[in-house]
């Protein structure tokens, strides 16, 4: 067994002070457990991404938020029951600095 890492969101831009529209990512039916990594790649000092679970990409329930800044740029979320969709909602609480972010999903292949 080995790990397979997939970047499902790459360099997504979030303007200063903005809330982005939800981004839905369909998950592989064969998956049971994954680790989701969220990386703040820009200059936001107050950047939150809430990961939601969703059956259809639209209806969603919060799974876990993470709050990042420029010194603490990466967080992991282990998920034991993988839903049909993961939905990512990014909020840039920094009113001055825009940012970009990645989401990497690590799965056992």
């Amino acid at each position: 067994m080995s790990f397979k890492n997939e970047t499902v969101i790459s360099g997504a831009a979030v303007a200063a002070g903005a809330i982005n529209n939800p981004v839905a990512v369909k998950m592989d039916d064969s998956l049971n457990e994954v680790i989701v990594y969220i990386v703040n790649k820009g200059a936001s000092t107050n950047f939150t991404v809430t990961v939601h679970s969703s059956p259809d990409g639209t209806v969603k329930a919060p799974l876990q938020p993470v709050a990042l800044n420029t010194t603490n740029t990466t967080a992991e979320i282990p998920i034991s029951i993988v839903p049909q969709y993961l939905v990512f909602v990014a909020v840039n609480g920094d009113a001055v600095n825009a940012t970009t972010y990645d989401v990497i999903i690590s799965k056992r292949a």
Partner: protein
Amino acid sequence: MKLVRPCAPFQMIEPQGEALTIDTSGKVLVLPTGNPDLLASFNEYTLNSNRLTIAESPFGGLKGSTPPDYAPGTLYTPTDGVYLTDTSGTNSTKTLTAGKLKELGLLTVDTVVHSITEEFIIANTSESNNPTVIDDCSATTGWGVSYGTGVLSIENGRLKLVGTSDTSGRLLVTRAISLNLTNYFFVSAKIEINASKNTYFRFTDSNSKLLEFSGARFSVTANTNTCFVYPIKAPAGTVGSNPITLNSGFSYSSIVSFVVGSVSLTPSTEYTIYIDDIKADTYKPAYVELQVPDYLTDTSLSLQCWSGSVYYTAWIAKLDTVFAQVYSDSSKMIYSDGTLLNDCYGVTTYWRLLYPKGSAGQTAINSVGSITYSQNKGTKNRVGLMVWFPPSDGGRTNFNKIRLKSILSYTDINGNTIPRLCTSGSSGIITGSVIKRNDYYLFDGAGTINTPIILGDNFELEFDIEISAYKPTGQWHMLCGAAASGAFGFGIRVNTGEIRATKLSLVDAPISGYTMPLNTRQKIGCRYNKPTLEYTINGVVVSTVQFDQTFLQSPVYLCNYSTWGFAGKLYGAKIYVNSQKILEFMPTVKNMGSTTYQFEDSTNASYGLQNGFKDSGGKPRPFIALFDPASHEADFYLFTHKPKNLEFKRDESGNIHELKLYPGNGLIYWGRIHYSDLTLDSNSDLIPNCLETSIEGSITKFLQSYGVVI
């Protein structure tokens, strides 16, 4: 139990009976209340500057005028009329909290010697304890003018004398009365003179023996009704409230009269004197609780009493789990006016008692009496103090007060105490929980070698020590090895801070780069497996020497010789020869100062859980959070049924190392969220973003969908 990392969003904690006890790590515990004044040590207003920092007290506390914090160091008195104050006599209260004492500079937590030191005053404000009226002065019957001349009347319920002093300056009234004051300790009276003068009060017994109170210590300000409290059993003296005269053999059971007035007036001058409310009274036993960490040393509490200029140690006792006196000098217990408690009550009377550790509602006993602790929660454990007090004289003096400094010494959950295994230049045997064989002496004075330990070709030594001051060059704290015929033995020698490796017949030298720090516990050791000699610090090898020497007849010295010696503490020692244990006393420290804090199912503003688990609008917030603000993760525990019980344990590093959760009829879920900054507060409302309902990503917002069964 220890929990492993949870998956998102959270995972259920398997029920384990009535309570779940979880090993945790965090510095801030949060129970949302929606109100900054409720559960103020634990609500979501974690950035409230009234909370004591860990540097101020790792055990917590609150400054300002919030509800009591009930943190370790908090004092409480349940006794009617008795209050606690700061050392200036202000901030009078029934509950003097750790936070308030810290704010006033009167509380210190010392994490080096593991103690909580605080200063406070106990005051009996009651002007009567359990009085018996001698004369209420509502009638002139039985009264007469004994010195000077004048007319007696009653005015507004008081005896009034308008008269002229005699040529000696005396103007006194007398009352013939048969009195038995055997069972009393005090008499009080109210006196007013229309001039600022010294007053006079005197009892006479059937043998004409006298008990007199007079002089400048018993003065009045003109036209001021003044209360005097006289300690009638005290010996004659010139300090405090002691009488000026107590004739030998004075009979308290056959008093026949008393006189009141003044003997220091201007001669042949008219004065008006009022006298009122003459009572016999007894002591009031004042009880005080001191909230404490869970484990106390064998010198749990040292009580010092203020003499008026300095503190003197009056009492040291072990209070965990039973009372045992370590030291007592009752002559050092002094009321704040200078009167000795021994003088008021006698040396052998039990006018002061200490009670061992107990929890809310528990009865703790010593050999003489008992105390039933209050139902106050917060810090679980407390110790008790009882002291007798006279009635108050309304502020004329501080006879009704006592100023104390308490030094509480705590230890860790293993109950480790600091053993005094040796003293400077002395010889003896390490005792207690030390394993010893055939009475080997580990240290020796003046070069006389007692039964030596034969170390041979394979041995290991380690000493757990703390140096409090450096010795001059040439003097040693400690040496292992023989010093014979001018030759040094091998060894570990702490000298001027240097840890020195010595070799037989060679000049000793410091282990390069290592200096023993002061007041820091360290383990230094050496192990020899011929020919390799290794020196270790805290278990790490720092120096290796090839040395082909068999160590026969090599005694191990600690505190060697009379002019050298040990400035510090020896916590433990370990000696193995050929892998066989010769001696071992190496306790390990775990959660030093561990303190249990208890909540309850009530509306108590300090620890009542009914105040928690909601926001300012009353919406349920059925979680608690635990985190270290310096870290990047916050744990939360989500309840399906509102908790009616909760406990945690916190040690002297400020770490909350254990949570005890009560699921009731429901379940508890555990989750963990990453926050890069757990102190970020974007709107400066003292609630960090990670707990702010309106902020995306906060624990509160994340869990807002979850209700709770009340």
